[in-house]
């Protein structure tokens, strides 16, 4: 094929194009490198130094506006290895930092150790030492000119205005590799919330980081801001939280629980706001701040009483007799009983099997059965419900389970704190499996009617039941944060949840619980003028003495507080549960304890039930 010579000329267009491009590039290079001095100036000063400006973390108030968690400045000693002189005054630095030469050398080795500090580079800022005190900082700042390449990074750490509520507040820790990987916000060395609201409200609390662009000279000395700081980004402070916790009540609750294992949860029924959430034993949140953090954290983890374990929302306990109101409600709603239905009690439920009960009149209708906590009554109720004619135990138990779930059992309630447990409510499949296909009937599972057997609940769920009864049939998902500055809390914490049980049945239960206080198991909770309603529980457990449980609310009409108390291995509900619960109610509603009840307070404060729990303190 002959060449088309008219097209061959096009090589000049293509060759010309790239020649022109190269000439333009050469002109631009000449501009940048030879004629334009500004790039040279920028570069003569060697490099930008981008200093992170940390926002101050949101502070935390209690429900009455008391500042509970605040920030305190803390200082890290940073350095850029490349910028250090060939030799620097080691002894001088030790004196300024108030450490020995050995300590300095070991910190130096840690910094360079790629295993402990995987991001080490001689060219980028490295942290030599953290948690510098205010005085050490002042001294170093004065002498900083002696140590080129060194600088000080200011950080905010937490300071606590209280010694309690560690389980609710949580703390902050340095981010780990996983945090950095999962969230682009974090850089190595940043802090993030750990446990409590610090963790669950981390995105609100942390704020937005800023940045300062500084210029350095060849010796690593800061020469001022790049272009007068017009490119700097000002950090945005984190949002403040207002807790629903009443910090005084929380402190009081923790005092009452000293020497005991267990939990107290108090809720304001109308709002679902948690007034106090005590987990015992607990720890001082200040332990996890500053240089002692690592050591203290390790000792908390290894403590056999597990203070880091939040029993109020992680502990799964048999609810015992505090479960009976839920049974009464289901039986009423399902028509198994009417308020006047009475069942006999021959010192217990005797029907092929035997479930014991204590001495009281017989037969009883619902309200006195709640007041006296009659086991037989609820066993009969469950028997008639499960073995209902024309239905199967499976279908009935399925219904039963659905009611329980509506009332907040069996699943996480959805509190705004990390690691809530869901408790346990058995369903028909569970029993089909555990009885391996053989028929099961009411008698096989009868103990669930009195909150024993397979049923497990968290103190939070028990407290939520008290709040539901106080409201006569609805509750709001319990939560510990009442307000977030400049925004609103999740709508989930403002919406009512209603179990499908009629209000009038809740009224019956409330009256029964009132009778328990006036003349039943909760007489110690009878506070004049407060119309307390209550229900005790004495939960059997395979490990040691019974657990002492109380659930109640007050005043009966227009209730202001609902409370659940759970004390492990403390015996009857009336011995510890009722006094502690009633003291919490009294403290919250009256502000102080009446003189005639001081003896009770005294007794609770001094009691120690850990001895009977079988766990040895060390």
């Amino acid at each position, binding site marked *: 094929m002959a060449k088309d010579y008219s097209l061959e000329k096009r090589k000049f267009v293509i060759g010309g194009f790239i020649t022109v491009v190269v000439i333009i590039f050469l002109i631009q*290079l000449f501009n940048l490198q030879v004629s334009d001095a500004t790039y040279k100036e920028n570069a003569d000063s060697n490099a930008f130094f981008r200093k992170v400006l940390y926002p101050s973390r949101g502070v935390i108030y209690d429900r009455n506006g008391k500042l509970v968690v605040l920030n305190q400045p803390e200082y890290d000693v940073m350095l850029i290895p490349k910028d250090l002189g060939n030799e620097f005054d080691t002894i001088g630095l030790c004196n300024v930092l108030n450490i020995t030469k050995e300590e300095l050398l070991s910190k130096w080795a840690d910094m360079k150790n790629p295993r402990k500090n995987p991001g080490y580079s001689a060219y980028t800022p490295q942290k030599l030492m953290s948690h510098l005190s205010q005085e050490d900082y002042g001294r170093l700042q004065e002498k900083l000119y002696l140590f080129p390449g060194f600088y000080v990074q200011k950080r905010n750490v937490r300071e606590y205005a209280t010694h309690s509520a560690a389980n609710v507040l949580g703390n902050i820790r340095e981010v780990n590799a996983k945090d950095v990987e999962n969230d682009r916000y974090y850089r190595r060395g940043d802090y993030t919330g750990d446990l409590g609201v610090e963790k669950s409200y981390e995105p609100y609390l942390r704020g937005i980081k800023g940045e300062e662009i500084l210029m350095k000279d060849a010796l690593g000395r800061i020469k001022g801001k790049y272009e007068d700081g017009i490119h700097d980004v000002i950090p945005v402070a984190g949002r403040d939280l207002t807790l629903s916790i009443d910090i005084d009540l929380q402190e009081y609750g923790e005092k009452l629980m000293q020497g005991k294992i267990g939990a107290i949860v108090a809720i304001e029924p109308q709002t679902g706001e948690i007034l106090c959430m005590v987990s015992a034993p607990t720890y001082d949140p200040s332990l996890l701040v500053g240089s002692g953090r690592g050591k203290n954290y390790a000792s908390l983890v290894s403590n056999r009483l597990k203070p880091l374990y939040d029993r109020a929302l992680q502990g799964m306990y048999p609810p015992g007799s505090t479960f009976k109101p839920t049974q009464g409600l289901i039986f009423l709603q399902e028509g198994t009983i009417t308020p006047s239905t009475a069942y006999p009690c021959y010192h217990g439920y005797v029907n092929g099997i035997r479930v014991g009960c204590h001495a009281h009149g017989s037969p009883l209708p619902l309200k006195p059965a709640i007041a006296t906590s009659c086991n037989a009554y609820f066993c009969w109720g469950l028997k008639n419900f499960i073995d209902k004619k024309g239905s199967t135990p499976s279908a009935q138990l399925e219904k039963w389970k659905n009611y329980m779930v509506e009332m907040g059992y069996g699943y996480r309630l959805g509190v705004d704190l990390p690691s809530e447990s869901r408790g346990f409510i058995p369903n028909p499949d569970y029993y089909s499996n555990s009885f391996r296909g053989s028929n099961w009937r009411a008698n096989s599972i009868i103990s669930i009617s009195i909150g024993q057997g397979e049923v497990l609940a968290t103190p939070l769920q028990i407290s939520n039941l008290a709040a539901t009864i106080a409201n006569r049939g609805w509750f709001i998902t319990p939560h510990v944060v009442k307000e977030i500055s400049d925004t609103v809390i999740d709508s989930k914490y403002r919406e009512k949840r209603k179990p499908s049980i009629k209000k009038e049945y809740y009224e019956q239960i409330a009256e029964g619980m009132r009778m328990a206080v006036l003349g039943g198991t909760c007489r110690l909770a009878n506070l004049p003028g407060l119309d307390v309603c209550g229900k005790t529980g004495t939960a059997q457990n395979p490990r040691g003495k019974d657990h002492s449980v109380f659930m109640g609310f007050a005043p009966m009409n227009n209730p202001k507080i609902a409370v659940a108390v759970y004390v492990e291995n403390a015996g009857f509900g009336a011995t510890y549960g009722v006094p502690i619960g009633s003291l919490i109610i009294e403290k919250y509603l009256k502000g102080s304890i009446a003189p005639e009840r001081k003896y009770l307070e005294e007794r609770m404060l001094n009691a120690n039930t850990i001895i009977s729990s079988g766990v040895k303190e060390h």
Partner: protein
Amino acid sequence: MESKNIDANTSVFRWLDWPTIIIYLILVVAGAISIYAASYDFDRASMFDFNEFSGKQFLWIGLSIIIGCAILLFDYRIYETYAYPVYIVVLLIMVVTIFVAPDIKGSRSWLVLGPVSLQPAEFGKFATALALAKLFNSYNFTLNQKISNYFRALIIIFIPVTLILLQHETGSALVYISLFFVLYREGMSGLVLFSAVCAITYFVVAVKFVEPLLLGIPIGEFTVFCMIIAVFCCMLLFYCKDAIISRNVLIGFTGSGLIVTALTLSGINVPGTWYFIGIIVAALIYVSIAMYRHQIERYVVTIIFAAASVMFLFSVNYVFGHVLEPHQQMRIKVALGIVDDPRGVGYNVNQSKIAIGSGGMTGKGFLNGTQTKLKYVPEQHTDFIFCTIGEEEGFAGSSAVLIAFLALILRVIHIAERQRTPFGRVYAYCVVSYLIFHIFINIGMVIGLCPVIGIPLPFFSYGGSALWSFTILLFILLRIDASRKERRD
């Protein structure tokens, strides 16, 4: 038989284009040294340590030279005979890559084979070049013979483009656009390239200059309207060779312009968009009535060109605001200097300009660059490798590199034109196109003249795939070229 083989081999080395090979060797060695400088850390190991980028790059270079020699030892006809099979195999590998490649920063383009990671998109380049060359080598094939020939060429080009886009490697896919140079050389109308230049110019002007307003429209848009009118008049004059109509149109535009200026000065607001649309439509109607010469299709082309330009202008704002993704908008805006964003997208460019600018006339000296060492320039051993050269070797070094590339490209054009078959010529122009595009975009981006598009600098950027790809590309060309004196059977 044996003596013939020896003959063939010696002739390969006898007719090998040594200037290209020398430039190639200079570039790859300079590349490895730059990589060493870019990733140098004073307490780190030597240039040849295989744990360092530079050591690995020397390994890649060694393998490249072996690959290059192997290519030279094959008979030149193999590349023509197996052009389509090679193309199809590479395409299949690229399809597989989409599904098996791990997600690396959003792109699925790396095929991991044990310790080695390869980017099949890079090898698509020489495969596409071979296929395109083979197509043009078909018996009696010329591009302008029939329209379906364009389709066949475009299909060969756009299949790999689509596959690479599916791997989310927009930069590598754009490289294939450069093959339009090949089509141009083979007879595609220059109007296409002219349209492309106009489109880019209009786009840049319209997007870049948004203030102040003139006649109620942004000054950029105003300028583009004026440019469309000027291009229209020029096309009438030089392309249709019709001085009379061109003059009349120009008089009409000038007259209406004066009227509008007068109206504006006397305080009457003239809506700019409607004014321009009005006069352009009037001019188009006038030309379509007045054209009477025998070259009627040139008038039609001119009219369509003007109308399309106006429509293009209107779609620019839409495309820019609605079709491009925010990060792409941002990169374009930074490249055009509309936004100054020294920490975001502009940070890389700003830092790389500072690094290059700090080099001065003769540079800071090998390994003495501070900007690139401080790791302020990202991707400094890959896409931004030119920074290191600019900083350490200064204007002298960086312009030497640019001129070496220019020499290579001009040399390959020279090689292309001495080929006796369309196969050799088209293949060589493919090499030219790829080189032009890579150098234009990569260096343009580093010195702040082009948007940031992540493609490597040939022979310099760290990475085996890109180096091998360009080596294969170049050595196949050298092998084809070396056979130019052999007798055709």
